[in-house]
């Protein structure tokens, strides 16, 4: 049975390297993924914050949107799927986007880059199939929606990432946060999901093992698993799809209104016109009933996903992500709270294994991001 389960999981292109490096492998989103390496989550997390961490994120979906006509027509069609200013993203630039449904819920969060004559999109692994179907259903008149299946995706994150990558791929150090570029066979963006400066690098499958080895040959680079990726993005206050955001949460509730540019807001040049605009614009005007907030538990016990926030014996909110923040050396969490209680400093009560545990609303990110803007 166990063997059957393993066979049913998709293997990462770097699976052999992960095993060689002693990774503990676990199923995640249909893939057998490295959760941690022998150093362990804590050391991997700290190493990424102090030097550079190499993440295999090849499970994520890479998609090309190739316009059948001009880029502007495609941009405007893409804008009907996201409350995001797609048109303003210039060639060589990337932006965070959110696919929304008619109810204003979030179908997925993604990165999209304008690569002059097409868009390059990176989506979550668990949403990949649904996203492709959604994009094809809505964009096929104006674009070919092509899943990229012959490339791996790596992330190099941390303060030493720039120097390490520049030595191997000259020219990358000059990139700014959210720049994208093509360097030979490599598609590189200056971005990531750890709060650190760093890069995401799309590599042809037949080159990825050699490329990963060249990065790991630098003593500043250590391989980092999904465990530390999760604690890093949590400290950075970033949402994890399926946990902090899903089809029931709107971008406004999720505190992601920064991702909705002025052009798409009420009074903007291209106001509304996206899936779920009624709810999203209404919530921006009137305020949502709940908000995603940063939460700092009192004491040392982590509050994890699913823990309820209680007031007068009523459930008023819920933790959606939580754990121990290795850089902060304390537990951190985020979750949904009634909007009136989302103010920094508000003290709330969580129910942890049946006991009352104090927790207070805090500013995010918990650890300041270090993007090179």
């Amino acid at each position, binding site marked *: 049975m166990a063997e059957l389960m393993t066979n049913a999981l998709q293997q990462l292109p770097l699976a052999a390297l992960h095993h060689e490096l002693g990774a503990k492998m676990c199923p995640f989103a249909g893939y057998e993924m490295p*959760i*941690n390496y022998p150093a*362990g*989550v*804590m050391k991997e*997390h700290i190493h990424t914050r102090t030097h550079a961490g190499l993440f295999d994120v090849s499970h994520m979906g890479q998609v090309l949107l190739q316009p059948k006509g001009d880029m502007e027509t495609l941009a405007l069609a893409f804008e009907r799927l996201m409350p995001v200013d797609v048109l303003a993203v210039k060639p060589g630039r990337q932006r965070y986007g959110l696919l929304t449904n008619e109810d204003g819920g979030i179908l997925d969060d993604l990165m999209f880059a304008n690569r002059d004559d097409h868009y390059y999109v990176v989506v979550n692994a668990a949403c990949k199939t649904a996203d492709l179907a959604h994009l094809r259903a809505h964009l096929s008149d104006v674009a070919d929606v092509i899943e990229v299946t012959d490339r791996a995706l790596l992330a190099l994150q941390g303060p030493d990432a720039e120097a390490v990558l520049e030595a191997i791929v000259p020219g990358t150090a000059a990139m700014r946060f959210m720049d994208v570029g093509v360097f030979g066979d490599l598609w590189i963006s200056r971005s990531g999901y750890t709060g650190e400066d760093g890069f995401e690098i799309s590599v042809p499958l037949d080159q990825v093992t050699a490329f990963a080895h060249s990065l790991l040959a630098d003593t500043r680079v250590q391989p980092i698993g999904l*465990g530390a990726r999760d*604690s890093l993005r949590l400290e950075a206050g970033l949402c994890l799809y399926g946990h902090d955001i899903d089809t029931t949460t709107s971008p406004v509730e999720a505190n992601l209104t920064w991702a909705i540019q002025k052009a798409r807001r009420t009074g903007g040049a291209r106001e509304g016109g996206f899936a779920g605009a009624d709810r999203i614009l209404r919530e921006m005007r009137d305020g949502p009933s709940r908000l995603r907030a940063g939460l700092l538990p009192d004491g*040392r*016990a*982590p509050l*994890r996903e699913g823990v309820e926030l209680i007031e007068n014996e009523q459930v008023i909110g819920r933790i959606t992500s939580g*754990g*121990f923040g*290795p850089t902060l050396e304390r*537990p951190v969490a985020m979750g949904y709270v009634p909007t009136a209680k989302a103010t920094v400093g508000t003290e709330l009560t969580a129910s942890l*294994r049946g006991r009352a545990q104090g927790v207070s609303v805090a500013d995010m990110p918990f650890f300041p991001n270090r993007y090179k803007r």
Partner: protein
Amino acid sequence: MKYTEDHEWLRVDGDVITVGITEFAAEQLGDVVFVELPELETMVSTGDEIAVIESVKAASEILAPLNGEIIEVNAELTDNPALVGEDPLGAGWFFKMKVDDLSTLDGLMDEEEYQNHIA
């Protein structure tokens, strides 16, 4: 030493047993960041969830291995939960309990059986 299927070890000293988790379990857990210990003088029954180990990754429970009374807890774990990973068989012990019926120890695994269990 005796072992449970849940990867606890029991060191027997008269009718008092000291309980901790095995090296195998400690390695599986990874970095321990918080330990919630049982209350002193609690009467516990086999299988009760009486302590919680929080690692960076997840929370896991420690179950009472036998019926008895908690008579001592390792307060050092409160300040230094990492002891669980650093010295699981020594300084990383969790609690001591006075066992109602020592013959119930016979139902637990010995070293060889435990090694086979995790093999």
